[in-house]
């Protein structure tokens, strides 16, 4: 049934700090999506090299296999696929409602555009941005929460979510033992091949003295496997607050962020590295809101859609395509439509370390996380009392409290 999200979030927080300590870059994916879009328009005959975005923000050098960012994305996809195959969660799924495909495409485009406008998605502008003590990440997180609320107002509409049609129950066809066995053999063979390929890539990079690429392969695989096993869905962390008033994943996210903040703080303190700070301004506010709206429309954020795609959910592949399109549109509009000039140029990069250094930034971050936790208390308590009123088993109550 997977791993509990709180501890998995905490493990991801600590691992992302370690990844930063080793490579000097944070765990992020949308920068690479933008580059993939750049490669795509290059193939279509355009010259993205002349766009300011690819000159100044995310450089288009080499292919995905030559970059740590590229390998993080590839290895995350591989890691999620490994986890899904191992846990027998893999199945090619197509939703009975065809409207899910245009919804995912539209949501993916909106989310991809918003993410790059704000310099990151739920990773670089949230999960690995808040631990860098960059104010833009807090602004992005807050506006993402607002955007997901807007998104829920949209998807709750009957024309969007579709009808509920239960039918009188009838006898169900079950798979035979032989069918089950054959599926397991197929899945585990694929598992073995992928592990061998990843190991070969690591070995190759170690032998050719490109150890950072090997690091990206290992961390990407672990990140991917963890988000699948823990079902680490940043979309749900916010969306569940509005859909079912559930705080479980939001609480897990706060635990993960606290772990990431503390471990990144230690890394910064010990190594003396400078934290990575991005501009905080209208671009962040608009980008965060669009991102929140888009991920609810698409059904998944940048990371959620990666592990869903690898579980075989075809809608997530469409959302992935939408993300790349949205990010590329933003890259085009950066200079061509004056997005940078109007929304980003005047925005200052603000680091929380300017309020009392690293220690001050640590205190501010932990206080903000504590406020987030407290703000969720009414929802947490109300849900707990409902579960207890039903006389559910004690184990279930603890699960909700955790």
């Amino acid at each position, binding site marked *: 049934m997977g791993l509990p999200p709180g501890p998995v979030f905490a493990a991801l927080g600590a691992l992302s700090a370690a990844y930063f300590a080793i490579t000097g870059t944070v765990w992020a994916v949308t920068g690479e999506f933008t580059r993939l879009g750049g490669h795509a328009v290059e193939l279509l005959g355009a010259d993205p090299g002349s766009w300011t975005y690819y000159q100044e923000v995310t450089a288009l050098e080499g292919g995905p296999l030559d970059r740590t960012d590229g390998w993080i994305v590839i290895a995350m996809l591989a890691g999620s696929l490994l986890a899904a195959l191992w846990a027998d969660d893999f199945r090619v799924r197509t939703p009975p409602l065809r409207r899910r495909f245009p919804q995912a495409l539209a949501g993916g485009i909106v989310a991809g555009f918003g993410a790059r406008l704000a310099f990151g998605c739920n990773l670089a502008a949230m999960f690995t941005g808040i631990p860098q003590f960059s104010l833009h990440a807090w602004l992005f997180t807050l506006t993402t929460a607002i955007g997901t609320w807007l998104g829920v107002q949209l998807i709750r509409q009957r024309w969007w979510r579709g009808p509920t*049609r239960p039918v009188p129950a009838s006898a169900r066809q079950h798979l035979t033992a032989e069918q089950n066995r054959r599926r397991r053999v197929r899945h585990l063979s694929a598992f073995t091949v992928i592990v061998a390929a990843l190991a070969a890539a690591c070995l190759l990079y170690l032998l050719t003295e490109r150890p950072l690429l090997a690091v990206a392969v290992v961390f990407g695989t672990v990140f991917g496997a963890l988000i699948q096993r823990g079902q680490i869905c940043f979309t749900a962390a916010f969306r569940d607050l509005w859909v*079912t008033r559930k705080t479980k994943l939001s609480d897990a996210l706060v635990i993960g962020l606290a772990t990431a903040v503390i471990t990144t703080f230690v890394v910064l303190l010990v190594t003396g590295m400078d934290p990575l700070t991005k501009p905080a301004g209208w671009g962040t506010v608009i980008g965060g809101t669009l991102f929140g709206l888009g991920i609810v429309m698409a059904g998944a954020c940048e990371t959620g859609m990666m592990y869903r795609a690898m579980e075989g959910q075809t809608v997530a592949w469409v959302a992935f395509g939408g993300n790349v399109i949205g990010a590329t549109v933003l890259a085009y509009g950066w200079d061509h439509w004056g997005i940078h000039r109007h929304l980003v140029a005047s925005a200052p990069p603000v680091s929380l370390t300017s309020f009392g250094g690293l220690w001050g930034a640590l205190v501010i971050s932990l206080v903000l996380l504590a406020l987030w936790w407290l703000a969720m208390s009414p929802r947490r308590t109300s849900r707990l009392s409902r579960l207890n009123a039903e006389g559910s088993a004690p184990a279930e109550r603890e699960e909700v409290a955790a």
Partner: protein
Amino acid sequence: MSSSFRTADYSLDLRGESCPYPVIHTLEALHGLRPGETIEISTDCPQAYRNVPDDARAAGHELLGEPVKEGATMLFVFRRGDAVLGRHLTEEKPRRRFGFLRGRRHQHEQ
């Protein structure tokens, strides 16, 4: 095989849908039932393996027996609770009887 075979009054096949739709449709379907009636839900969204029973219980319904997983598909049987608890998306709509089931339910009562 026989151990995984269960009967319920209704069934709802949510395979192919991913979260939050399995939860929304499960809650809406349960609200449409009468207290005590049972429904079998099938979902293949791994996030729903946890969310569907979590949210159905928090809304006052009862999970009957252990969920059964067959490949990537998970089967749940719920009994509709006496009262729907809490606030969520589907509760604000007027309670809908499933029109096309009415005939069957009527026969059932006779």
